[in-house]
């Protein structure tokens, strides 16, 4: 017979969340990252405001996020890099840091379960990330109202919120990964490097690797359809692809399909008139798999960290 634990596993959860958020928000590490995000937002917003295509009045606010001026990428381009960095910075020393400071056994000797500690740390990190991103988001919208002189439409706000949600979910994946490594590796530096390597691998090398694999398959089989499907499947294993695809469709209502277009589809689109924007519900349908993929990835990574942490001995 398996013994059943008594008492709530969530006891003390919000105490841990509050402490983690207080720690993060007052730490030097987060201060530096916040300054970087703020500067990036200010610069890209300035560029976007100067480069907004004149005459078009559709989705001006969404263009604040996506308009770029060479050589600088748009704000969303920077977010793709900064969000994983912040998420990893929030999570890489969460468990091993407690272990090395010898606070872990003392905290676990209080009447809480390990569940509350791990989930509290995860939620604390996620809330911090959400807080920072929401603040930046509000700032951009606010400055946009100020400079453009018009309020955002309901659809713009809804799309903007979806974009925020996707960005937080994308951060959740890297936070989850960083926490898995922080449970697995005793040295915070090792955990940070491991998390950054995985991130680099998926952001920089994965695309190249997919290209090579698809080329190899192309030599072996001549089917174009199969090649395209394979490429799409492999590319979407990377959370980076999922994130880029989802914000592409959310912030550009004109986007009607994701991934490389087949000639047939392209011709069809021509016939329908490509430039007419999709309604929000259709854009949402388009990125639904990507969004759920990001959230599912976050949950899976947290579950792995949870299992590892539950099995861990709290002394060396």
């Amino acid at each position, binding site marked *: 017979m398996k*013994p*059943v*634990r*008594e*008492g709530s596993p969530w*006891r*003390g959860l919000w*105490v*841990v969340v509050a*402490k983690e958020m207080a*720690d993060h928000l007052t730490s030097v590490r987060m201060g530096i990252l916040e300054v970087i995000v703020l500067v990036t937002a200010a610069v890209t917003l300035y560029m976007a405001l100067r480069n907004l295509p004149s005459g078009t009045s559709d989705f001006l606010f969404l263009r604040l996020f996506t308009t770029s001026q060479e050589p600088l990428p748009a704000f969303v381009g920077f977010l793709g890099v900064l969000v994983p960095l912040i998420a990893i910075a929030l999570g890489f020393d969460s468990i091993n840091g407690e272990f090395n*400071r*010898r*606070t872990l*056994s*003392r*905290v*676990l*000797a*209080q*009447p*809480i*379960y390990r569940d509350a500690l791990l989930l509290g740390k995860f939620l604390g990190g996620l809330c911090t990330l959400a807080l920072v991103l929401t603040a930046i988001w509000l700032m951009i919208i606010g400055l946009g109202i100020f400079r453009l002189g018009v309020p955002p439409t309901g659809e713009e706000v809804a799309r903007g919120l979806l974009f925020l949600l996707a960005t937080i979910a994308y951060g959740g994946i890297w936070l989850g990964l960083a926490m898995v490594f922080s449970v697995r590796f005793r040295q915070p530096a090792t955990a940070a490097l491991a998390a950054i390597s995985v991130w680099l691998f998926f952001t920089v090398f994965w695309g190249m690797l997919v290209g090579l694999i698809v080329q190899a398959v192309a030599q072996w089989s001549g089917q174009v359809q199969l090649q395209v499907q394979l490429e799409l499947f492999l590319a979407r294993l990377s959370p980076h692809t999922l994130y880029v695809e989802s914000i592409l469709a959310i912030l550009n209502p004109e986007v009607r399909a994701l991934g490389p277009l087949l000639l047939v589809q392209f011709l069809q689109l021509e016939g329908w008139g490509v430039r007419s924007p999709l309604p929000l519900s259709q854009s949402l349908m388009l990125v639904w798999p990507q969004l759920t993929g990001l959230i599912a990835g976050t949950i899976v990574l947290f579950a792995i960290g949870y299992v590892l942490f539950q099995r861990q*001995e*709290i*002394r060396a």
Partner: protein
Amino acid sequence: MNEIVIETHNLTKRYGDIVAVDNLNLTIRAGEVFGILGPNGSGKTTTILMLLGLTEPTDGWARVLGFDPMRQPLEVKSRVGYLPDQVGFYDELTAWENLAYTAKLNGLARPVAQRRINEALERMGLADVADRRVGTFSRGMRQRLGVAEILLKHPQVIILDEPTLGLDPEAAREFLQIIRTFKEEKITVLLSSHLLHQVQAVCDRVGLFSHGKMVVEGTVMELARQVLGGAYSVHLRAVGPDLTQALQKLPKTISVQRLNSDLYKVEAQEDIRGEVARVAVQVGAHVLSLGLEEPSLDEIYQRYFQGVTAA
């Protein structure tokens, strides 16, 4: 007899092939100060972690205050104060903030928490440094902060793992004084250590651990009888003729050693100071001093582990 506070039955913990704790049967009653004594790696900390539900036993069971640490760890942990070896705090927070976090984790309401934190810091002599960051604290202060943290729970049982490790003699002495105050408050204390004289100074009963087993258990006197074979040593300082022969003739004598010209050490089955004095006077020596050497844990420990390694 007082009620049983901590009880284990065939408690066993294996890590792969290594047996950390081997069929441990332990009973500690309310108000006792029990010392777990043993070299590093003898299973002391593992036993403590199992009592707190922080590590799962491979076999056997434990009860703390009537609760099963495996199934009801929250009940156990809200009643038991635990000071781990080398206790750590959040360096960037103040002493007060560190304790406030613990109080919240224990679900104490804010006014109760504030009062108890202030009381605990006051009692540990840390009231003046309550608002200083723990990063600036010395080892001894951290240790006292650890005790303050325990006190704020108002625990029924206190478990201390190597509490005096790394403390200077003065701080260690103060620390033992604190443990004595727990005893006065009728709090049950479980103390693990490898520093024998300290255990001897505060513990009512002692369990000697070796390779995951509790090999001997009892009061210091009982241990002495078991391990040292019931020997009493009487020290006699006397000037005059050689007393070795005469002392050896005493019925209860085991052995006599002449340590120098006027100092003798008599090992006996009983306290034979009276006979020794009588014999010395009869032979015509001047007795300068006579004393009974109390068995020290150091000796028991040494003697026991000599025996084990020899076997």
